[in-house]
Protein backbone atom coordinates (compact mmCIF):
# COMPACT_ATOMS: atom_id res chain seq x y z
CA UNK A 1 0.00 0.00 0.00
CA UNK A 2 2.78 2.38 1.04
CA UNK A 3 4.78 1.49 -2.09
CA UNK A 4 1.77 2.04 -4.28
CA UNK A 5 0.98 5.48 -2.96
CA UNK A 6 4.62 6.42 -3.27
CA UNK A 7 4.75 5.44 -6.89
CA UNK A 8 1.63 7.44 -7.62
CA UNK A 9 3.37 10.45 -6.05
CA UNK A 10 6.27 9.92 -8.44
CA UNK A 11 3.94 9.67 -11.40
CA UNK A 12 2.10 12.88 -10.52
CA UNK A 13 5.28 14.81 -9.80
CA UNK A 14 6.98 13.60 -12.96
CA UNK A 15 3.95 14.54 -15.02
CA UNK A 16 3.74 18.02 -13.48
CA UNK A 17 7.48 18.55 -13.84
CA UNK A 18 7.40 17.63 -17.50
CA UNK A 19 4.51 20.01 -18.14
CA UNK A 20 6.40 22.79 -16.40
CA UNK A 21 9.64 22.06 -18.18
CA UNK A 22 8.47 21.66 -21.76
CA UNK A 23 8.41 25.40 -22.52
CA UNK A 24 11.70 25.87 -20.70
CA UNK A 25 13.27 23.01 -22.58
CA UNK A 26 11.95 24.49 -25.74
CA UNK A 27 13.75 27.78 -25.08
CA UNK A 28 16.98 26.10 -24.10
CA UNK A 29 17.09 23.75 -27.06
CA UNK A 30 16.06 26.50 -29.44
CA UNK A 31 18.95 28.63 -28.26
CA UNK A 32 21.26 26.14 -29.95
CA UNK A 33 19.50 26.33 -33.30
CA UNK A 34 21.61 28.40 -35.63
CA UNK A 35 20.34 31.00 -38.08
CA UNK A 36 17.19 30.07 -39.93
CA UNK A 37 16.81 26.74 -38.14
CA UNK A 38 15.08 28.68 -35.41
CA UNK A 39 12.18 29.45 -37.75
CA UNK A 40 12.06 26.04 -39.33
CA UNK A 41 8.64 24.63 -40.12
CA UNK A 42 7.49 22.07 -39.06
CA UNK A 43 9.22 22.87 -35.78
CA UNK A 44 11.50 20.34 -34.20
CA UNK A 45 12.40 20.09 -30.54
CA UNK A 46 15.97 18.86 -30.93
CA UNK A 47 18.15 21.12 -33.12
CA UNK A 48 19.53 19.60 -36.31
CA UNK A 49 22.98 20.69 -35.26
CA UNK A 50 23.96 22.17 -31.96
CA UNK A 51 25.55 25.50 -32.64
CA UNK A 52 26.84 28.23 -30.37
CA UNK A 53 26.25 30.97 -32.96
CA UNK A 54 23.42 32.54 -30.97
CA UNK A 55 25.58 32.78 -27.89
CA UNK A 56 28.40 34.32 -29.86
CA UNK A 57 25.91 36.82 -31.28
CA UNK A 58 24.59 37.58 -27.79
CA UNK A 59 28.05 38.36 -26.51
CA UNK A 60 28.78 40.60 -29.44
CA UNK A 61 25.58 42.61 -28.84
CA UNK A 62 26.51 45.72 -26.91
CA UNK A 63 28.24 44.98 -23.67
CA UNK A 64 26.50 41.89 -22.48
CA UNK A 65 29.16 41.01 -19.92
CA UNK A 66 29.05 44.51 -18.47
CA UNK A 67 25.25 44.38 -18.10
CA UNK A 68 25.56 40.96 -16.55
CA UNK A 69 28.07 42.27 -14.02
CA UNK A 70 25.90 45.30 -13.23
CA UNK A 71 22.90 43.07 -12.63
CA UNK A 72 24.88 40.75 -10.44
CA UNK A 73 26.25 43.58 -8.30
CA UNK A 74 22.92 45.32 -7.87
CA UNK A 75 21.05 42.08 -7.22
CA UNK A 76 23.42 40.79 -4.57
CA UNK A 77 23.67 44.11 -2.74
CA UNK A 78 19.95 44.69 -2.78
CA UNK A 79 19.14 41.15 -1.68
CA UNK A 80 21.52 41.39 1.26
CA UNK A 81 19.84 44.62 2.32
CA UNK A 82 16.39 43.06 1.88
CA UNK A 83 17.23 40.09 4.07
CA UNK A 84 18.48 42.34 6.86
CA UNK A 85 15.78 45.00 6.96
CA UNK A 86 12.85 42.72 6.09
CA UNK A 87 13.75 40.23 8.80
CA UNK A 88 14.18 43.00 11.38
CA UNK A 89 10.84 44.55 10.51
CA UNK A 90 9.09 41.18 10.19
CA UNK A 91 10.39 40.23 13.63
CA UNK A 92 9.16 43.49 15.14
CA UNK A 93 5.69 43.04 13.66
CA UNK A 94 5.39 39.41 14.68
CA UNK A 95 6.81 39.33 18.17
CA UNK A 96 6.29 42.71 19.84
CA UNK A 97 3.14 44.36 21.10
CA UNK A 98 3.40 48.09 20.52
CA UNK A 99 1.36 51.08 19.57
CA UNK A 100 0.68 51.37 15.87
CA UNK A 101 1.67 47.79 15.12
CA UNK A 102 -1.50 46.91 13.24
CA UNK A 103 -1.51 50.24 11.43
CA UNK A 104 2.09 49.92 10.25
CA UNK A 105 1.45 46.39 9.07
CA UNK A 106 -1.57 47.47 7.08
CA UNK A 107 0.37 50.32 5.49
CA UNK A 108 3.05 47.87 4.40
CA UNK A 109 0.57 45.41 2.99
CA UNK A 110 -1.47 48.05 1.25
CA UNK A 111 1.54 49.28 -0.68
CA UNK A 112 1.57 45.86 -2.28
CA UNK A 113 -1.64 46.86 -3.97
CA UNK A 114 -0.19 49.86 -5.72
CA UNK A 115 0.89 49.03 -9.23
CA UNK A 116 4.33 50.61 -9.56
CA UNK A 117 3.66 51.26 -13.23
CA UNK A 118 1.12 53.83 -12.16
CA UNK A 119 3.29 55.86 -9.76
CA UNK A 120 6.39 55.85 -11.91
CA UNK A 121 6.40 59.61 -12.38
CA UNK A 122 6.37 60.60 -8.69
CA UNK A 123 8.95 57.90 -7.99
CA UNK A 124 11.12 59.39 -10.66
CA UNK A 125 10.75 62.85 -9.15
CA UNK A 126 11.82 61.63 -5.73
CA UNK A 127 14.71 59.56 -7.09
CA UNK A 128 16.13 62.53 -8.93
CA UNK A 129 15.60 65.01 -6.07
CA UNK A 130 17.60 62.69 -3.82
CA UNK A 131 20.36 62.52 -6.39
CA UNK A 132 19.86 58.82 -6.95
CA UNK A 133 19.16 59.13 -10.65
CA UNK A 134 21.55 57.09 -12.73
CA UNK A 135 23.19 55.57 -9.67
CA UNK A 136 23.38 51.98 -8.54
CA UNK A 137 22.26 53.10 -5.09
CA UNK A 138 18.96 54.08 -6.68
CA UNK A 139 18.61 50.49 -7.88
CA UNK A 140 19.73 48.91 -4.62
CA UNK A 141 18.02 50.82 -1.83
CA UNK A 142 14.41 51.65 -2.83
CA UNK A 143 13.29 48.18 -3.94
CA UNK A 144 15.00 46.46 -1.00
CA UNK A 145 12.18 47.16 1.44
CA UNK A 146 9.88 44.56 -0.08
CA UNK A 147 6.43 44.23 1.49
CA UNK A 148 6.16 40.60 0.38
CA UNK A 149 9.38 39.71 2.17
CA UNK A 150 8.28 41.40 5.32
CA UNK A 151 4.91 39.66 5.12
CA UNK A 152 6.61 36.30 4.60
CA UNK A 153 8.90 36.65 7.59
CA UNK A 154 6.19 38.02 9.84
CA UNK A 155 3.82 35.14 9.08
CA UNK A 156 6.58 32.63 9.68
CA UNK A 157 7.66 34.14 13.00
CA UNK A 158 4.08 34.32 14.30
CA UNK A 159 4.37 30.65 15.14
CA UNK A 160 7.51 31.09 17.24
CA UNK A 161 6.43 30.76 20.88
CA UNK A 162 6.87 33.89 23.03
CA UNK A 163 8.17 31.75 25.86
CA UNK A 164 11.55 31.25 24.24
CA UNK A 165 11.97 35.02 23.85
CA UNK A 166 11.07 35.55 27.48
CA UNK A 167 13.51 32.87 28.55
CA UNK A 168 16.27 34.60 26.60
CA UNK A 169 15.40 37.94 28.19
CA UNK A 170 15.58 36.44 31.67
CA UNK A 171 18.98 35.05 30.75
CA UNK A 172 20.03 38.65 30.09
CA UNK A 173 19.96 38.74 26.29
CA UNK A 174 19.44 42.18 24.73
CA UNK A 175 16.71 42.62 22.13
CA UNK A 176 19.33 42.78 19.38
CA UNK A 177 20.89 39.56 20.62
CA UNK A 178 17.51 37.92 20.60
CA UNK A 179 17.04 38.94 16.98
CA UNK A 180 20.54 38.09 15.87
CA UNK A 181 21.26 34.92 17.82
CA UNK A 182 17.84 33.40 18.40
CA UNK A 183 15.41 34.57 15.73
CA UNK A 184 17.67 34.56 12.69
CA UNK A 185 18.69 30.90 13.12
CA UNK A 186 15.06 29.90 13.66
CA UNK A 187 14.02 31.88 10.61
CA UNK A 188 16.64 30.30 8.38
CA UNK A 189 14.12 28.42 6.20
CA UNK A 190 12.03 31.49 5.50
CA UNK A 191 15.08 33.68 5.03
CA UNK A 192 16.34 31.21 2.44
CA UNK A 193 13.00 31.46 0.71
CA UNK A 194 13.24 35.23 0.73
CA UNK A 195 16.82 35.09 -0.55
CA UNK A 196 15.61 33.02 -3.52
CA UNK A 197 12.71 35.38 -4.20
CA UNK A 198 14.60 38.60 -3.70
CA UNK A 199 17.41 37.52 -5.97
CA UNK A 200 14.86 36.63 -8.62
CA UNK A 201 12.89 39.87 -8.23
CA UNK A 202 15.93 42.09 -8.49
CA UNK A 203 17.51 40.08 -11.26
CA UNK A 204 14.38 40.06 -13.39
CA UNK A 205 13.31 43.56 -12.42
CA UNK A 206 12.67 45.81 -15.30
CA UNK A 207 10.70 48.71 -13.91
CA UNK A 208 13.16 50.14 -11.36
CA UNK A 209 16.07 50.09 -13.79
CA UNK A 210 13.79 51.71 -16.34
CA UNK A 211 12.99 54.52 -13.93
CA UNK A 212 16.43 55.00 -12.43
CA UNK A 213 19.00 54.27 -15.12
CA UNK A 214 19.57 56.01 -18.43
CA UNK A 215 23.34 55.65 -18.76
CA UNK A 216 23.96 52.59 -20.96
CA UNK A 217 27.08 51.82 -18.96
CA UNK A 218 24.83 51.12 -15.98
CA UNK A 219 22.22 49.02 -17.78
CA UNK A 220 21.10 45.82 -16.16
CA UNK A 221 20.57 42.69 -18.23
CA UNK A 222 16.78 43.02 -18.31
CA UNK A 223 16.95 46.64 -19.35
CA UNK A 224 19.43 45.78 -22.07
CA UNK A 225 17.23 42.94 -23.34
CA UNK A 226 14.09 45.03 -23.49
CA UNK A 227 15.89 47.90 -25.17
CA UNK A 228 17.20 45.38 -27.56
CA UNK A 229 13.67 44.24 -28.38
CA UNK A 230 12.51 47.80 -28.78
CA UNK A 231 15.30 49.27 -30.85
CA UNK A 232 15.99 46.86 -33.63
CA UNK A 233 14.08 44.43 -35.66
CA UNK A 234 14.05 41.75 -33.06
CA UNK A 235 16.93 39.38 -33.56
CA UNK A 236 15.39 36.30 -31.99
CA UNK A 237 18.59 34.33 -32.32
CA UNK A 238 20.60 36.37 -29.89
CA UNK A 239 17.55 37.24 -27.80
CA UNK A 240 16.87 33.62 -27.06
CA UNK A 241 20.49 33.00 -26.11
CA UNK A 242 20.46 36.02 -23.81
CA UNK A 243 17.26 34.76 -22.21
CA UNK A 244 18.83 31.41 -21.45
CA UNK A 245 21.95 33.03 -20.02
CA UNK A 246 19.91 35.26 -17.72
CA UNK A 247 18.21 32.23 -16.18
CA UNK A 248 21.46 30.74 -14.93
CA UNK A 249 22.24 32.94 -11.88
CA UNK A 250 18.68 32.66 -10.55
CA UNK A 251 18.79 28.91 -10.94
CA UNK A 252 22.12 28.68 -9.12
CA UNK A 253 20.77 30.71 -6.21
CA UNK A 254 17.69 28.51 -6.05
CA UNK A 255 19.78 25.35 -5.94
CA UNK A 256 22.12 26.77 -3.30
CA UNK A 257 19.37 27.92 -0.98
CA UNK A 258 16.74 25.25 -1.41
CA UNK A 259 18.62 22.89 0.92
CA UNK A 260 17.98 25.31 3.75
CA UNK A 261 14.27 25.17 3.68
CA UNK A 262 14.43 21.43 3.93
CA UNK A 263 16.77 21.59 6.91
CA UNK A 264 14.24 23.85 8.56
CA UNK A 265 12.02 20.83 8.96
CA UNK A 266 14.27 19.37 11.62
CA UNK A 267 15.26 22.50 13.53
CA UNK A 268 11.92 24.26 13.67
CA UNK A 269 10.20 21.38 15.39
CA UNK A 270 10.38 23.14 18.72
CA UNK A 271 7.98 22.88 21.59
CA UNK A 272 5.79 25.62 22.89
Amino acid sequence: MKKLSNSSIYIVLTFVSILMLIPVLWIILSSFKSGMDLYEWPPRLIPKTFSLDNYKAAFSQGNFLLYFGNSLFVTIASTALTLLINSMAGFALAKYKFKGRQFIFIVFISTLMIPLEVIMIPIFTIISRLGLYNSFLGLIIPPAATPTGLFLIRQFLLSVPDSILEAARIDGASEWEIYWKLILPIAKPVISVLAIFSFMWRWNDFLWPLIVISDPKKYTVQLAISNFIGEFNVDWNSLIAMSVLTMIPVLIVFILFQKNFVQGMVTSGMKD
Partner: protein
Amino acid sequence: MAHKNKINRQKRIAPYLFLLPNLSIFIVFIVAPALYGVYYSFTDYDGLNKAKFIGLENYIEIFGDMKFWLIFKQTGIYAAIVVPGIFLFALGVALLLIQKIKFKPVFRAAIYWPTMISFVVVGVTWKWIFGDSFGVLNYLIELMGREGIPWLTDPFFARMTVVIATLWCRVGFYMVIFMAGLQNIPLQYYEAARIDGATKVLAFRYITLPLLKPTSVMVIMLCIIDSFKAYPLIVSLTGGGPGKTTTYLVQYIYRYGFEKSKLGYASAMSVLLFAVIAIITAIQFRSKKEDM
Protein backbone atom coordinates in the same frame (compact mmCIF):
# COMPACT_ATOMS: atom_id res chain seq x y z
CA MET B 1 14.03 45.66 39.74
CA ALA B 2 16.31 48.05 37.90
CA HIS B 3 17.25 45.19 35.63
CA LYS B 4 13.63 44.45 34.90
CA ASN B 5 12.93 48.10 34.08
CA LYS B 6 15.81 48.13 31.68
CA ILE B 7 14.44 45.04 29.97
CA ASN B 8 11.04 46.64 29.70
CA ARG B 9 12.38 49.87 28.29
CA GLN B 10 14.43 47.98 25.74
CA LYS B 11 11.44 45.90 24.84
CA ARG B 12 9.35 49.03 24.27
CA ILE B 13 11.81 50.81 22.00
CA ALA B 14 13.18 47.79 20.16
CA PRO B 15 10.32 47.21 17.70
CA TYR B 16 10.49 50.80 16.44
CA LEU B 17 14.21 50.54 15.89
CA PHE B 18 13.80 47.22 14.11
CA LEU B 19 11.19 48.76 11.84
CA LEU B 20 13.04 51.99 11.16
CA PRO B 21 15.20 51.11 8.13
CA ASN B 22 12.47 49.27 6.27
CA LEU B 23 9.84 51.82 7.13
CA SER B 24 11.87 54.86 6.13
CA ILE B 25 12.81 53.45 2.72
CA PHE B 26 9.20 52.58 2.28
CA ILE B 27 7.80 55.94 3.16
CA VAL B 28 10.22 57.83 0.94
CA PHE B 29 10.01 55.66 -2.16
CA ILE B 30 6.56 54.09 -2.10
CA VAL B 31 4.19 55.84 0.28
CA ALA B 32 5.18 59.36 -0.75
CA PRO B 33 4.84 58.68 -4.50
CA ALA B 34 1.53 56.96 -3.82
CA LEU B 35 0.27 60.06 -2.03
CA TYR B 36 1.34 62.12 -5.01
CA GLY B 37 -0.75 59.73 -7.06
CA VAL B 38 -3.77 60.36 -4.85
CA TYR B 39 -3.28 64.09 -5.37
CA TYR B 40 -3.07 63.66 -9.15
CA SER B 41 -6.36 61.81 -9.07
CA PHE B 42 -8.05 65.13 -8.25
CA THR B 43 -6.34 66.96 -11.09
CA ASP B 44 -6.18 67.26 -14.80
CA TYR B 45 -2.59 66.28 -15.46
CA ASP B 46 -0.75 65.19 -18.60
CA GLY B 47 2.67 64.55 -17.06
CA LEU B 48 4.23 67.65 -18.61
CA ASN B 49 2.19 70.72 -17.79
CA LYS B 50 1.26 71.73 -14.29
CA ALA B 51 -1.52 69.68 -12.74
CA LYS B 52 -4.82 71.54 -12.58
CA PHE B 53 -7.08 70.81 -9.61
CA ILE B 54 -10.52 69.66 -10.75
CA GLY B 55 -11.95 68.07 -7.61
CA LEU B 56 -13.91 64.88 -8.08
CA GLU B 57 -14.37 65.19 -11.83
CA ASN B 58 -12.14 62.22 -12.68
CA TYR B 59 -14.03 59.99 -10.31
CA ILE B 60 -17.37 61.07 -11.68
CA GLU B 61 -16.13 60.38 -15.18
CA ILE B 62 -15.00 56.88 -14.18
CA PHE B 63 -18.40 55.99 -12.81
CA GLY B 64 -19.88 56.64 -16.23
CA ASP B 65 -17.06 54.91 -18.10
CA MET B 66 -18.62 51.64 -19.25
CA LYS B 67 -15.33 50.42 -20.67
CA PHE B 68 -13.64 50.76 -17.31
CA TRP B 69 -16.30 48.63 -15.63
CA LEU B 70 -16.09 46.04 -18.35
CA ILE B 71 -12.32 45.79 -17.86
CA PHE B 72 -12.97 45.70 -14.15
CA LYS B 73 -15.32 42.74 -14.50
CA GLN B 74 -12.84 41.01 -16.76
CA THR B 75 -10.10 41.42 -14.18
CA GLY B 76 -12.39 40.11 -11.45
CA ILE B 77 -13.21 36.98 -13.45
CA TYR B 78 -9.56 36.41 -14.22
CA ALA B 79 -8.72 36.70 -10.51
CA ALA B 80 -11.60 34.41 -9.53
CA ILE B 81 -10.17 31.67 -11.74
CA VAL B 82 -6.48 32.21 -11.16
CA VAL B 83 -6.49 32.56 -7.36
CA PRO B 84 -8.12 29.22 -6.44
CA GLY B 85 -6.24 27.54 -9.29
CA ILE B 86 -2.86 28.66 -8.04
CA PHE B 87 -3.77 27.97 -4.42
CA LEU B 88 -4.82 24.37 -4.99
CA PHE B 89 -2.10 23.55 -7.47
CA ALA B 90 0.68 25.04 -5.35
CA LEU B 91 -0.55 23.47 -2.11
CA GLY B 92 -1.00 20.08 -3.78
CA VAL B 93 2.48 20.06 -5.21
CA ALA B 94 3.99 21.31 -1.94
CA LEU B 95 2.25 18.51 -0.01
CA LEU B 96 3.67 15.92 -2.39
CA LEU B 97 7.10 17.46 -2.15
CA ILE B 98 7.37 17.21 1.63
CA GLN B 99 6.79 13.45 1.54
CA LYS B 100 9.75 11.17 1.95
CA ILE B 101 10.64 10.67 -1.68
CA LYS B 102 13.74 10.68 -3.83
CA PHE B 103 14.77 13.30 -6.39
CA LYS B 104 13.06 16.04 -4.39
CA PRO B 105 15.51 18.76 -5.46
CA VAL B 106 14.96 17.83 -9.08
CA PHE B 107 11.16 18.08 -8.84
CA ARG B 108 11.36 21.28 -6.87
CA ALA B 109 13.69 22.89 -9.36
CA ALA B 110 11.54 21.74 -12.27
CA ILE B 111 8.36 23.21 -10.86
CA TYR B 112 10.01 26.41 -9.69
CA TRP B 113 11.86 26.96 -12.95
CA PRO B 114 9.12 28.80 -14.85
CA THR B 115 8.89 31.26 -11.95
CA MET B 116 12.47 32.33 -12.57
CA ILE B 117 11.97 33.39 -16.14
CA SER B 118 11.34 37.07 -16.72
CA PHE B 119 7.90 37.96 -18.06
CA VAL B 120 9.27 39.17 -21.35
CA VAL B 121 10.75 35.78 -22.08
CA VAL B 122 7.69 33.93 -20.79
CA GLY B 123 5.49 35.85 -23.20
CA VAL B 124 7.75 35.13 -26.14
CA THR B 125 7.95 31.44 -25.32
CA TRP B 126 4.24 31.02 -24.96
CA LYS B 127 3.59 32.80 -28.21
CA TRP B 128 5.79 30.23 -29.78
CA ILE B 129 3.69 27.46 -28.31
CA PHE B 130 0.24 28.96 -28.66
CA GLY B 131 0.70 30.92 -31.88
CA ASP B 132 -2.24 30.34 -34.25
CA SER B 133 -0.47 29.56 -37.47
CA PHE B 134 3.10 29.02 -36.34
CA GLY B 135 2.57 27.63 -32.82
CA VAL B 136 3.90 24.26 -31.82
CA LEU B 137 0.72 23.21 -30.09
CA ASN B 138 -1.43 23.74 -33.17
CA TYR B 139 1.13 21.92 -35.22
CA LEU B 140 0.75 18.90 -32.95
CA ILE B 141 -3.03 19.17 -33.00
CA GLU B 142 -3.02 19.31 -36.79
CA LEU B 143 -0.70 16.30 -36.90
CA MET B 144 -3.43 14.40 -35.09
CA GLY B 145 -5.78 15.37 -37.87
CA ARG B 146 -7.76 17.99 -36.02
CA GLU B 147 -8.20 21.63 -36.71
CA GLY B 148 -5.90 24.08 -34.97
CA ILE B 149 -7.32 26.17 -32.15
CA PRO B 150 -7.21 29.98 -32.33
CA TRP B 151 -5.41 30.21 -28.99
CA LEU B 152 -4.59 33.89 -29.15
CA THR B 153 -7.17 35.29 -31.57
CA ASP B 154 -10.40 33.91 -30.13
CA PRO B 155 -11.53 35.71 -26.95
CA PHE B 156 -12.38 32.53 -25.07
CA PHE B 157 -9.16 30.73 -25.90
CA ALA B 158 -7.05 33.84 -25.42
CA ARG B 159 -8.40 34.15 -21.89
CA MET B 160 -7.72 30.48 -21.30
CA THR B 161 -4.17 30.84 -22.60
CA VAL B 162 -3.57 33.76 -20.29
CA VAL B 163 -4.83 31.74 -17.31
CA ILE B 164 -2.67 28.75 -18.21
CA ALA B 165 0.41 30.93 -18.65
CA THR B 166 -0.27 32.65 -15.31
CA LEU B 167 -0.59 29.33 -13.51
CA TRP B 168 2.50 28.04 -15.20
CA CYS B 169 4.72 30.87 -14.11
CA ARG B 170 3.25 31.56 -10.65
CA VAL B 171 2.69 28.12 -9.11
CA GLY B 172 6.37 27.59 -8.28
CA PHE B 173 6.49 30.80 -6.29
CA TYR B 174 3.59 29.85 -4.05
CA MET B 175 4.76 26.25 -3.84
CA VAL B 176 7.96 27.48 -2.21
CA ILE B 177 6.00 29.58 0.29
CA PHE B 178 3.78 26.63 1.13
CA MET B 179 6.78 24.36 1.58
CA ALA B 180 8.36 26.76 4.05
CA GLY B 181 5.05 26.96 5.90
CA LEU B 182 4.54 23.20 5.94
CA GLN B 183 8.02 22.64 7.26
CA ASN B 184 7.32 25.01 10.07
CA ILE B 185 4.76 22.58 11.50
CA PRO B 186 6.41 20.67 14.34
CA LEU B 187 6.88 17.01 13.47
CA GLN B 188 5.83 15.93 16.96
CA TYR B 189 2.24 16.78 16.11
CA TYR B 190 2.24 14.27 13.29
CA GLU B 191 4.01 11.73 15.51
CA ALA B 192 1.32 12.12 18.12
CA ALA B 193 -1.44 11.82 15.55
CA ARG B 194 0.13 8.71 14.13
CA ILE B 195 0.37 7.10 17.54
CA ASP B 196 -3.27 7.94 18.14
CA GLY B 197 -4.05 6.09 14.94
CA ALA B 198 -5.14 9.09 12.86
CA THR B 199 -5.12 8.60 9.10
CA LYS B 200 -3.19 10.90 6.79
CA VAL B 201 -6.41 12.56 5.71
CA LEU B 202 -7.40 13.29 9.30
CA ALA B 203 -3.94 14.56 10.12
CA PHE B 204 -4.17 16.89 7.13
CA ARG B 205 -7.59 18.16 8.15
CA TYR B 206 -6.86 18.69 11.85
CA ILE B 207 -3.13 19.43 11.97
CA THR B 208 -1.85 20.66 8.63
CA LEU B 209 -4.71 22.93 7.60
CA PRO B 210 -5.14 24.82 10.88
CA LEU B 211 -1.42 25.23 11.48
CA LEU B 212 -0.88 26.29 7.89
CA LYS B 213 -3.46 29.04 8.17
CA PRO B 214 -1.07 32.02 8.44
CA THR B 215 0.62 30.79 5.27
CA SER B 216 -2.66 30.15 3.47
CA VAL B 217 -4.00 33.58 4.36
CA MET B 218 -0.84 35.15 3.04
CA VAL B 219 -0.88 33.12 -0.18
CA ILE B 220 -4.49 34.02 -0.90
CA MET B 221 -3.85 37.70 -0.27
CA LEU B 222 -0.69 37.85 -2.34
CA CYS B 223 -2.44 35.92 -5.07
CA ILE B 224 -5.43 38.25 -5.20
CA ILE B 225 -3.19 41.31 -5.26
CA ASP B 226 -1.01 39.69 -7.90
CA SER B 227 -3.88 38.86 -10.19
CA PHE B 228 -5.46 42.30 -9.91
CA LYS B 229 -2.11 43.76 -10.84
CA ALA B 230 -1.44 41.32 -13.70
CA TYR B 231 0.26 43.28 -16.42
CA PRO B 232 3.70 42.47 -17.82
CA LEU B 233 3.03 38.83 -18.58
CA ILE B 234 -0.22 39.51 -20.35
CA VAL B 235 1.12 42.39 -22.36
CA SER B 236 3.96 40.28 -23.64
CA LEU B 237 1.65 37.35 -24.38
CA THR B 238 -1.52 38.76 -25.93
CA GLY B 239 -0.95 42.51 -25.75
CA GLY B 240 -4.40 42.62 -24.16
CA GLY B 241 -6.19 41.34 -27.22
CA PRO B 242 -7.99 40.17 -29.23
CA GLY B 243 -9.85 43.45 -28.99
CA LYS B 244 -9.66 44.20 -25.30
CA THR B 245 -10.70 40.76 -24.13
CA THR B 246 -7.55 40.08 -22.12
CA THR B 247 -6.91 43.66 -21.09
CA TYR B 248 -6.92 43.94 -17.32
CA LEU B 249 -6.99 46.95 -15.06
CA VAL B 250 -3.32 47.85 -14.80
CA GLN B 251 -2.84 47.71 -18.53
CA TYR B 252 -5.92 49.84 -19.07
CA ILE B 253 -4.69 52.36 -16.51
CA TYR B 254 -1.22 52.36 -17.97
CA ARG B 255 -2.61 53.06 -21.42
CA TYR B 256 -4.51 56.06 -20.15
CA GLY B 257 -1.56 57.37 -18.21
CA PHE B 258 1.19 57.02 -20.74
CA GLU B 259 -0.31 56.60 -24.16
CA LYS B 260 -3.18 59.01 -23.80
CA SER B 261 -1.32 61.24 -21.29
CA LYS B 262 -4.32 61.42 -19.01
CA LEU B 263 -2.40 60.92 -15.79
CA GLY B 264 -5.04 62.49 -13.57
CA TYR B 265 -7.68 60.11 -14.83
CA ALA B 266 -5.29 57.15 -14.66
CA SER B 267 -4.44 58.05 -11.06
CA ALA B 268 -8.10 58.13 -10.12
CA MET B 269 -8.52 54.65 -11.59
CA SER B 270 -5.53 53.43 -9.58
CA VAL B 271 -7.00 54.86 -6.42
CA LEU B 272 -10.18 52.92 -7.12
CA LEU B 273 -8.22 49.76 -7.85
CA PHE B 274 -6.35 50.25 -4.60
CA ALA B 275 -9.62 50.71 -2.72
CA VAL B 276 -11.07 47.52 -4.17
CA ILE B 277 -8.09 45.38 -3.28
CA ALA B 278 -7.97 47.00 0.15
CA ILE B 279 -11.61 46.10 0.77
CA ILE B 280 -11.09 42.50 -0.30
CA THR B 281 -8.04 42.28 1.93
CA ALA B 282 -9.86 43.83 4.86
CA ILE B 283 -12.63 41.25 4.54
CA GLN B 284 -9.99 38.53 4.56
CA PHE B 285 -8.38 39.99 7.65
CA ARG B 286 -11.64 40.21 9.47
CA SER B 287 -12.70 36.65 8.77
CA LYS B 288 -9.32 35.28 9.79
CA LYS B 289 -8.50 37.74 12.49
CA GLU B 290 -7.06 35.38 15.04
CA ASP B 291 -4.28 34.36 12.66
CA MET B 292 -3.24 37.78 11.60
